[in-house]
């Protein structure tokens, strides 16, 4: 019986979440990575790489030294199986 109540809670949670997602897709802007500075085409390409790969597992760190941006991009290339092109785009996004 208790477990049925929990299941009811799950469906309620899922319903509210999906409604919120649907409402948000129509109105809210995409969040900018606070660790990265923007710039035209490469920014959108690099941001796409970041959002489709890195942020699948974790949030963006709030800030870091530009001296390690290449190391971060290399690490993500291995962890997320990025191509060399995507690694370069990500590097420009992290350190424009």
């Amino acid at each position: 019986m208790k477990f049925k109540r929990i299941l009811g809670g799950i469906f309620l949670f899922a319903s509210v979440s999906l409604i919120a997602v649907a409402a948000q897709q129509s109105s809210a802007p995409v969040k900018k990575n606070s660790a990265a500075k923007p710039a035209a085409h490469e920014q959108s390409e690099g941001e796409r790489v970041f959002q489709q790969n890195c942020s699948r597992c974790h949030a963006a760190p709030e800030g870091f030294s530009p001296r390690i941006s290449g190391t971060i991009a290399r690490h993500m290339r291995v962890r997320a199986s990025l191509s060399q092109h995507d690694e370069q785009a990500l590097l420009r996004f992290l350190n424009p």
Partner: protein
Amino acid sequence: MPMFQPTHEVKTRIASRGIRSLGFALIVIATAHWGSAQDTPLISGGGGFFSSTNGGNTSYLPIIEPLIAAPIGPHILVESRATLLESFSPNGGGQTGYNHSHFIALTYLQGDVIVSPHLTVVAGDYLIPFNTFNDRLSPIWIGNFQDGPLISGLGIFSIGEGLGGMLRGNAIQRKKYSIDYAYFYSASTINQQFQADRGTGGRASLYLPDQRLEIGLSYDRLLQGVHENFYGAHVWWEPKDTAFRLRSEFSRGHHAQGYWVEADYRTQAFGGLDSWVGRFEPVFRMQQTFRRDTVASDGLPKVNTQRADFGLDYNLPHNTRILTSYSRQFSSTRDTNIWETGLVYRFLFPTWKGKQP
């Protein structure tokens, strides 16, 4: 089962292994020649303080998980992660007071060689790529709950690490889809520095970027003792332009099977993700385990178990998170309430000043 609760087996690999292996990593880093000013080696990781109250007993767990990554030339990366923790738990048997134990170990130490756009060769002590939790979600600065899933012990050969080689990469990458793979072979060793079981296996995942949908299958086989097979599947969905994430895994082992489904959400409707409201992150996880026989050698509960985890995290500025959760666990032995709170800080900085890029 706390995510970083040391098992008796793992406790044997303490201090000396971690210190010697980390020393080896530092030697490699110190002798490396850096390609550019952006390639300074980094130290990242997380530090946290967790508390967990299970059935009225509260335990405390301060923990640090440092990670070091160092590129060598244009195609090589050396990376390593370690765990240092002190566990405080109440004395059992009606005694008052607390006992404590410490645990220091290297989680992994591997060298990555980027051979081609589709192939990276990994050598050393690596995390076994079975499903997603072990090698993608286990760091404390990533997980939404301080506990790992109940089924996290399946398919990772007890300690989660393999010693040997791994091939991984992007087999196919198109605009509409991509396919990733990882294949590993681990040797058996009882060396105190690098304990591992002999086994082989891998994972393949399909990712659809338009739908933000990832579907993967995993398989591995233990090649010593009873040759057990493990099967896994995962589905992740993260709708575009939202901060909603749905992750799930199913695992089947020789003696047990189970699944977990986790959903988390942050609203952007009240000033964005960095507003005080947007920093709240409700999380929900449902999990079930099923025993196939009574040989409980895999770390899963000894009887069929259902558990619901209700979490509320808060993402503070400066890479700090507060994790809170309440869990209700149902099993034939007894039902329990589990309350957890924790504070996690993520750090990320260069190992030294280096040249200005």
